[in-house]
């Protein structure tokens, strides 16, 4: 079987996901994605070789994210008429799923070089903007105890007994780590500024990092999901699925959950031969990957099993991994993963995560993969895992090592 390599990874800075103040809101989603595809091409001279496909994750592909945004972005980025594009959706796992699909095709010799990543402008299409029958269609939601994610996160915290201070402390760390990483330029290899048609910079830094966040400032925030859970009966649904619980504790809020942002990402994946043809040097080898389904009510606890499966496939264990990137969907998701696997906080999300920098749903998976590869190089480490939980009880993991 052919090995699949990561040649490069780029991402936009993440803009606030608000129409009024979001730094990227005035850019179109297709242009945002195309900008990253252009960056990949500019930074890596493919020569005459075209990429075989463009695979982009996008969770709410409606309105300006609709119509197969991957093909539109490929056209807009001048990849050539012959380069197709496909938009995929595995909720929050989509960006990494795109890379995973690219790697699978390279491994199977069905393709040599693929641009994969994702895009989501949450300021343009709100969360659930393409419809969410998994929570609105009684035929699906009622028999399967499906509840909104935030309530699932609070359910994890309740089951594990995480206090408000514990989840807030994790969030403060994420902010501090992200701020430090920015200050030390640790993201400079990946972040490509978003520019307009005149070359003027629209945004060149993540907008949501709060270096001064502390326990006191987070402590003042109200729980985000309590009112909704109690009014709509989601608390009862959660308890009926987990009947050892008497009442839910509500610890998640805007400050310890992933932030709503706009962003796009792209990763160049290919075989060693394809890179050699164009004189490209691989940065990392993709060892294995796994996508799994898990219990959908608690929804967000799948990453441990996804990692276990991906690691087992290549004869590795959790302790063989030098660095971890687990998407910070909610603080409790990461705390639960560390409790379950024994992975230490010192090697987990060392440069912060979505709690500080935001989670542009379809793009995040490829973003954290890029962050991981950057950090492996910077810290001179060898092995890493990127993993994300996803809606309806799913997760993805990818194991890489430096090439």
């Amino acid at each position, binding site marked *: 079987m052919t090995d699949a390599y990561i040649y490069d990874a780029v991402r936009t800075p993440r803009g606030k996901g608000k129409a009024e103040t979001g730094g990227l809101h005035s850019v179109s989603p297709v242009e945002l994605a195309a900008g990253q595809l252009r960056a990949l091409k500019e930074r890596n001279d493919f020569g005459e070789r075209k990429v075989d496909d463009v695979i982009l994750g996008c969770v709410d592909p409606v309105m300006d994210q609709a119509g197969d945004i991957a093909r539109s972005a490929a056209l807009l980025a001048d990849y050539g008429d012959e380069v197709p594009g496909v938009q995929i959706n595995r909720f929050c796992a989509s960006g990494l799923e795109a890379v995973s699909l690219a790697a699978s095709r390279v491994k199977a010799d069905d393709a040599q070089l693929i641009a994969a990543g994702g895009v989501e402008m949450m300021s343009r299409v*709100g969360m*659930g903007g393409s*419809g*969410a029958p998994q*929570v*609105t*269609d*009684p*035929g699906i*939601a*009622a*028999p399967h*105890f499906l*509840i*909104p994610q935030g309530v699932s996160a609070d359910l994890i915290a309740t089951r594990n007994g995480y206090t408000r201070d514990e989840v807030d402390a994790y969030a403060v760390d994420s902010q501090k780590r992200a701020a430090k990483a920015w200050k030390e330029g640790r993201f400079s290899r990946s972040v490509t500024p978003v520019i307009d048609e005149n070359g003027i910079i629209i945004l060149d830094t993540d907008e949501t990092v709060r270096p001064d966040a502390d326990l006191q400032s987070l402590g003042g925030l109200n729980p985000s999901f309590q009112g909704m859970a109690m*009014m*709509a*009966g*989601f*608390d*009862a*649904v959660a*308890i*009926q699925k987990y*009947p*050892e*619980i*008497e*009442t839910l504790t509500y610890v998640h809020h805007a400050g310890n959950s992933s932030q709503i942002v706009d962003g796009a990402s792209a990763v160049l994946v290919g075989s060693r031969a394809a890179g050699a043809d164009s004189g490209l040097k691989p940065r990392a080898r993709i060892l294995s990957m796994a996508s799994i389904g898990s219990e959908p009510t608690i929804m967000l606890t799948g990453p441990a099993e996804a990692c276990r499966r991906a690691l087992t496939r290549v004869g590795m264990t959790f302790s063989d991994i030098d660095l971890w990137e687990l998407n910070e969907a909610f603080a409790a998701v990461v705390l639960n993963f560390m409790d379950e696997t024994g992975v230490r906080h010192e090697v987990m999300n060392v440069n912060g995560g979505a709690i500080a920098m935001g989670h542009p749903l379809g793009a995040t998976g490829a973003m954290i993969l890029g962050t991981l590869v950057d950090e492996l190089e910077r810290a001179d480490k060898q092995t890493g895992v990127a993993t994300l939980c996803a809606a309806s009880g799913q997760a993805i993991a990818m194991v890489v090592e430096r090439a």
Partner: protein
Amino acid sequence: MNLENDFFRIDTDSDGVALLTIDVKDNAVNVFTEDFLRVFEETLPKLIDDEAVNGVVIASAKPVFHVGADLDMAQNMASRPAQELYDDIMRINAMFRLMETGGKPFAAAVNGHALGGGFELALACHARVVADDSKLQLGLPEVKVGLMPGFGGTQRLARMVPLMEALPVMAQGVSLKPQKAKALGVVTDMVPAGSVVAAARKWILDNPKAAQPWDVKGFKAPAGKVHSPANVQLFAGAIGQGRKATYGNYPSPAAILEAVYHGLQMPIDQGLKVEARKFVSIAHSQVARSMIKTLFFGMNDANALKRRPAGPAKCDFKKIGLVGAGLMGAGIAYQAARAGIDVVLLDRDEQAAAKGKAYSERLLDKAFKRGKITEEKKAAHLGHIETTTDYDDLAGCEIVVEAVFESKEIKEKVLSAVEAAVAPDAIIASNTSTIPITELSAFLKDPSRFIGLHFFSPVEKMPLLEIISGEATSEATLAHAFDFCGAIKKTPIDVNDGRAFYTTRVISSYMAEGMALVRDGVSPALIENAGKTMGMPMGPLRLADMVNLDLAVKIADQARADLGDAFNEPLGIAAARRMVALERVGEKARAGFYDYGGPQPILWRGLNEEFPLADEQPGLGAIQKRLMTIQVVETMRCFEDGVLKTPEDADLGSILGWGFPPFTGGIASYVDQTGAAALLSDARSLAEAHGARFEPPANLIALADANGLLHAA
């Protein structure tokens, strides 16, 4: 067209308005039967094709407009093949669609209740002219017996009014009053009761080219788009709330919601198919069959006093006596006076008696303030209650019920005094819930006139009356107790004497088993959720707190004193004793298994110290098996001991008496559905694991061996 048959008549006037008057023969109300629908289906195309007919008014010759499908028909549906039933439902839909699209206006002249299929018939008319009568109900109550609307109700109502208004009508069975329905646009016109037909006729003449809104191009439902942000929240919330309320035990509310959710996204003819598919699956469900059997047929039979002994002549109650004006006595007084019966309310002093009457006054004031009754009605009601301290005032009462403190000494004095005061043929009854009737009857010279009448609190709200015959109770006394029950509009069950009778005995086993689980180190939250998710109204610990733990201990002590070594104290009582020793006696002390200090009762955090959690916790199913099997075993013992006489009473008593899950159709139906063999095997393995309280009685073994049913098949 002019015609007459067993279901309706048609008279066409000179303006070409055909008046179709529904008057189902030999029935007090108008209902759909298979024959009615067949005749209606044959007639309708001819009526529409008749050139002499310009429009149709559908009216009723009875006080109700139409109350929908006959439940015999609904019950038959359960056993019909799915395709056949679906085809029949779609034929009814086609018939209603023909009314809507046949080119002639239809107006319903709604003079009285329009419910279920009757309301659906009205919804399929182009206009609904309704009598201005605040008692008149428009609604879709199918969900209350586990069914759902099947003649287009979910599709039409959801296309007429906003979902916030439509969903409670369909998914909870909340009926609409004409005023409200008019404001929502469901009712076209509201007119005085006598002129609905005339007004409907006028509407036909004014609207010769009527069409339903959903058949007009560009129709937009007032609900808006299903996938609008507001509706996304509404549906997600409705699903959550639905599960919160039903624990997923009742399939029909979710099916109704699903029919609306998908139906609203498509043309009505497609939406009707979605509704019909759901309807077929619901009609076939065990839940609907069980609920119809017990909550409709069983309830009707009981309320019609079907199990009253036929021999003795009927007794009319004009004057009754109540001794003891506490909560129960006052409640019974209220209930009897409401039925227009004179009540003598007797207590030790005038103040206590007056306090009992004040209870009625309070209830009536509340009803008056809500506009439910008039000042005159309130005065008349109160006028029926006379307070006294003198037993001689009981003279002339047809029945006297004692509801004094639960002490044999006190009851002995009261009963002797009552017997001395009343006529020899008057019935004397006790509202005791703990003392055997046969023991109390010994205090009377004539024990054959004595009977137990176990009311439930609050009397005015709880429909059940458990009638308990002692060893000496005569057939006439029992028959007249039934008559009394009918007179005060309660639902009777007829049982024999025995410690704690039937309902209290079985519910006590549920509470005791919950407490035994606590003693076994099972997580209290898990125990409570196990009880609630299996459909009990409360977890066993919360219920025990409500009953109060010192009472449970006291009853156990009394039983031990009465029975000596023969008494097998339920294991859970030890937990109750420990709680009482900790001065946590239950809700009245604001401290029991729960703490009652906050906005919601929460399980006492100290429980885990008192009853350390076992390292390994059982699954929910294992706990439910214990909580359910103990009730089944105790119920079977009630049959074995002769306390219970019929499975029908076992069913009704379980649902109305202690809130046994209604979706099962009651505990005897539950036995039949689950199968005696499976229950026997559960009981045996639980007896082995947890003790003799689960030991199956001989009748359960025999039933399992015979592969038999409690209800006749």
